[in-house]
């Protein structure tokens, strides 16, 4: 019998497809979450109305931010699940080592980030349609005027934000896998930080906000965010690469 000498990239591809086929239910969850977010968004985020000489004009501002927030949360949870015992064991049913399994996980998370981001962006149009058809009055829909390049940048930015959240989830999941005690410690620390930030000047939050969100240069922002996500994944690789499977 001859021994197969596998190529790393082939195995990663196979693992990726295996996940792609096996983890379809994640996308059902995404559809449900985005639908809920759209319902939340129907109230609009701001409105004003004014009338004169028998004509009433009411103006509402709608945003798909809710949908995007839910999508990020979804990517975060999917990433945590991928690091859990059951999912790692499923990797090891067929050919893999820890490294290929993780590369396939990152590829999978990136793919779902693209899908999540695009559907979140497109949900704006759904939101407009719903408001348009659900109103008895004459409705004009006016989109914020954007240059086509801004659409592309907006798309890339959305994808990267979702991916960054998945990276955070993956790292937290990996830390919990290292020692289950962190499953209790991390949420407690998180809530404690929230309370602390509520009481004090929010230096860290402000700094994060400034460092990522308020970066004017798209390229710089891209580098910063991309670098952060990569760093999180490398840290996770390091943690998970020593984990034993199927205890």
């Amino acid at each position, binding site marked *: *019998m001859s021994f197969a000498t*596998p190529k790393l990239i082939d195995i990663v591809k196979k693992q990726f497809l*295996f*996940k792609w*086929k096996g983890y*379809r239910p994640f996308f059902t969850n995404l559809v449900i979450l985005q639908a809920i977010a759209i319902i939340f968004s129907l109230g609009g985020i701001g409105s004003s109305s004014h009338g004169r000489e028998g004509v009433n004009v009411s103006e509402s501002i709608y945003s798909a931010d809710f949908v995007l927030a839910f999508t990020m949360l979804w990517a975060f949870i999917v990433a945590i699940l991928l690091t859990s015992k059951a999912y790692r064991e499923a990797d*090891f*049913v067929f050919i893999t080592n820890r490294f290929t399994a993780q590369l396939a996980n990152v590829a999978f998370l990136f793919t779902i980030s693209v899908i999540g981001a695009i559907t979140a962006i497109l949900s704006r149009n759904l939101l407009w349609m719903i408001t348009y058809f659900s109103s008895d009055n004459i409705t004009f829909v006016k989109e914020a005027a954007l240059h086509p390049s801004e659409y592309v940048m907006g798309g890339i930015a959305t994808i990267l934000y979702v991916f960054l959240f998945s990276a955070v989830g993956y790292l937290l999941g990996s830390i919990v896998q290292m020692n289950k005690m962190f499953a209790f410690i991390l949420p407690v620390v998180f809530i404690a930080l929230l309370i602390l930030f509520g009481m004090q000047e929010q230096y860290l939050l402000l700094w994060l906000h400034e460092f990522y969100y308020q970066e004017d240069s798209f390229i710089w922002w891209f580098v910063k965010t991309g670098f952060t996500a990569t760093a999180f994944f490398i840290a996770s690789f390091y943690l998970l690469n020593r984990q*034993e499977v*199927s205890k």
Partner: protein
Amino acid sequence: MNIVQCNAVSKSYGNVAALDEVTFSIKQDTITGIIGRNGAGKTTLLKLIAGYWKHSKGDIHVFSENPFNSLTVSANMIYIDDQMTFPDAMPLHSILTEAARFYPNWDAKLAKRLFDYFSFHPNQFHDHLSKGKKSTFNTIIGLASRCALTIFDEPTTGMDEAVRNDFYRALLRDYIVAPRTILISSHHLNEIEHLLEDVLLIDRGRVKLHLSIDALQQYAIGVTGNQAVLSQWANDQEILFSKDDGENSLFLVVRNNVSKEKMDQLLGLGIKPTSISPAELCLYMTQLKKGGIDDVFRDA
């Protein structure tokens, strides 16, 4: 060529050693039974070989590589037990399709035939199968993948007797068509004895015996007789197991290297040695206490 080579391999959890300096090697294209009591270390050993777990001390080589994190070992090895988890949303037929994509030697025809023979439904989910059916399905993957090293860890858990016999037969027939190195762990040596070429007996984390099944059949004899007389006779023999029934009668299992003179002496006492089957021998050699469970109920 040795497919598996272990030199003084230990695996411990804290202070408890699951495996204690285990040394042995497995030749290419043999079927070896890994035999031992519950908790003897069979699964630990197999998971180290599969590269799922990391050994604590010693050297372990599978296909001349350390199996932990080795892609080559993973590509040429499959590990089958009743704990295999597949993605929830994957019906049985897609699991087989996926397995075919991964394993270069996958025998789709064999998989399909076994699948139909054991009357699985393509759209069933692995999670919904009964214990025995799960095990049966997993063994189909194990056989059809035709990996150079195929590990079955208690593959027949939950299977009924008919399915167990079918599986053993399928394993043997497929082995003849496609020889490979097979490790199969079990409590029931008598059921799988006819499949095996070698037996690796493990007891409390150590290798007790590693012999061919033929050698095992000749390894020991049993003698029963008067306690005083027999213990006198056996004081220079290698005693593997002894049991007294409390009524002056003694049963001994001794190494089958008794000299002619000693044997005549025994026959002169009117004691006829009995043969000890490999399954019995393994049981006797892994008894926890000399008196067995009866000791627990015996008043001090």
